[in-house]
């Protein structure tokens, strides 16, 4: 099978098990449950899911030279994910999020950018790999200056090596430097260099300010507009609703790197909606969007059709949400998915 490199955002999620109704009261001691340290970010999540699906994955990103960094590296090693391109820096701490998630309540995050601020794409190797997946520019500030010049340079380098390029986004915090970036201009500049774009609707709402999308038709129109901006394959995930998948014409696929080159006939000019699978018990929604991206990319590198790949995206995402091991999914024959 084709090889994939996942590059960019890498961090650890620190999730204390909390009782219901907990609040922050100054001066008060409250008993809580054990702390769960879970490596995360696009590199760990999408990379890990692809590896679990049987894809040969290598990773690229920046960690701090600290305990958290060692935990993340160890996690990647144990899951058979290549770490030769992971940089360990003494200039910043490993990025982390404290996840505040009491039972029955919405989640709150406290996020430290840390070593992810040092990722500028220059250390990513474009040799001996077929698809480069990058996530998430809003949390990788070194990629953003000058309308995403560093991101565009990385994508161009991959394209020159005839790789297929893929990009995932994250929600843009309006109060961060990324919140002040011109995302309309940035995406218009880089999308012609992006073959596969798999953001969530939330990512696009927060970066592009598209507030008017409230129904499926609007979502599919938005996906089509991103194809018009230059991407070849766009999948927008809308949480529990499902995913909209939209693709460009045959001409664009001809410039889509090694992975898309063989798929033109069955993938061009697609416009479809795939409703999410019902989930019995939600274990976590953490990494569900990354899992959907992994399902889509697996579909591409395994040579599936567009509807099969969309089906894979929602299947892998549902498994992630239910806490089922991705490796247990029987995807050997995509026709049965």
């Amino acid at each position, binding site marked *: 099978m084709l090889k994939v490199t996942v590059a960019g955002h890498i961090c650890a999620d620190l999730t204390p098990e909390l009782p*219901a*109704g907990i609040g922050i009261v100054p001066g008060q001691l409250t008993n809580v449950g054990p702390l769960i340290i879970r490596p995360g970010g696009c590199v760990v999540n999408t990379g890990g899911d692809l590896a679990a699906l049987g894809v040969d994955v290598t990773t690229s990103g920046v960690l701090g030279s600290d305990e958290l960094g060692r935990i993340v590296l160890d996690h990647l090693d144990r899951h058979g994910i290549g770490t030769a391109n992971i940089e360990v820096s003494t200039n910043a701490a490993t990025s982390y999020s404290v996840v505040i998630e009491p*039972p*029955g309540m919405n989640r709150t995050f406290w996020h430290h950018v840390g070593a992810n601020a040092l990722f500028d794409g220059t250390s990513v190797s474009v040799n001996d790999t077929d698809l480069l997946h990058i996530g998430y520019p809003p949390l990788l500030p070194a990629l953003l200056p000058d309308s995403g010049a560093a991101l565009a340079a990385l994508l161009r380098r991959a394209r020159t090596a005839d790789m297929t390029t893929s990009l995932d986004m994250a929600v843009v915090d309006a109060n961060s430097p990324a919140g002040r970036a011109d995302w309309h201009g940035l995406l218009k500049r880089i999308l012609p260099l992006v073959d596969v774009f798999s953001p969530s609707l*939330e990512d696009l709402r927060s970066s592009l*300010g598209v507030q008017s999308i409230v*129904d*499926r038709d609007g979502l599919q129109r938005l996906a089509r507009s991103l194809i018009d901006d230059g991407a070849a394959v766009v999948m927008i995930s809308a949480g529990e*609703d499902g995913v909209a998948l939209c693709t460009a014409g045959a001409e664009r696929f001809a410039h889509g790197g090694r992975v898309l080159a063989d798929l033109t006939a069955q993938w061009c000019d697609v416009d479809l909606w795939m409703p999410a699978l019902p989930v019995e018990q939600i274990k976590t929604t953490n990494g569900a969007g990354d899992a959907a991206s992994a399902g889509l990319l697996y579909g591409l590198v395994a040579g599936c059709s567009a509807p099969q790949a969309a089906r894979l995206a929602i299947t892998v995402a549902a498994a992630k949400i239910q806490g089922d091991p991705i490796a247990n999914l029987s995807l050997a024959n995509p026709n049965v998915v």
Partner: protein
Amino acid sequence: MVDVASLAGVSIKTVSRVVNGVTTVDAEIATRVRAAIAHLGFQPNQLAAALKSGAPTATIGLVIKDVSNDIYATLMLGAIDVARHHGTQIITSVIGESQSDIEELDAIYDLCRRRVDGLIVVPGSGDLSGLRSQIDLGTPMVFMDRRPHGLNADSITVDNRGGSREAMRDLIMRGHRRFGVVVDSLSIDTMSERLAGIRDSLRESGILVSQSQIVTGVRAPTDAAGVVTRMLNMTAPPTAIFCGNSRSTIGAIEAIRAQTTPVAIAGFDAFPLAHLMPVPLTLVSYDANFMGQRAAELLFRRIGSDSREPEHVVLATKLLHLGGSLA
């Protein structure tokens, strides 16, 4: 009783026979005993008598949520009404939403130890399978408002899913597409069912559920007011708010008072003075008094040794349009 016997100049046994209405007691002696009872103000202890004989105690237990919430007060009044007709008093234990499953079980077992004839329980979300042995030992239980987890016993609940689905359809029909949803913790079954109904109606209309602002775990009206205020200050605020219960509805009303653009409010549960609110309200209402009555009737049927399979009654809801227009 010893004093009565002494004053009337009869044995304790004779006093007991008079008190229990045995007709073979000599009329003159019976009159003397009754005069002594009246003189001393003697009250026979029915509970002690029942304990000794194993007979019913003419008391039932009620384990209920916060009775300052009008819905629970109304449920209780319905149950009391039926109990009165059965010559039965109710011992009430209030177990709030934030109290633990263990506190709830403690209250239920405490009432069982007091030898109540049966129990009506508004259950929390804990596993109640351990109560099976109490029911089998002869303390029947009826569950009201929510079905018990881990136990198949009589229950009477509301069509939560259908009710919220209908209210949301009403809002969608009136042109709303952007929604805020405020509900209490989803560990409470009524809340997760109401949220499921909201999802149903959004999906059937092709509206993205994920784009609605759904906030869970909101309990006090002031918290709901804060949540709704934050929703309305967003770039593309909801044009309609759905609240999972009346406390959230009251909080939402408080929040939209400060708004210049009209915001529609729908919510589960009617509440007192809702018709006087200065904003239009769409409320999912049901007959809580009837639910309390029906629960008590089911319980008395079981106390009367009815051994049919457990019954699960689901009450229908209706949509009310109350309140006035914005000034």
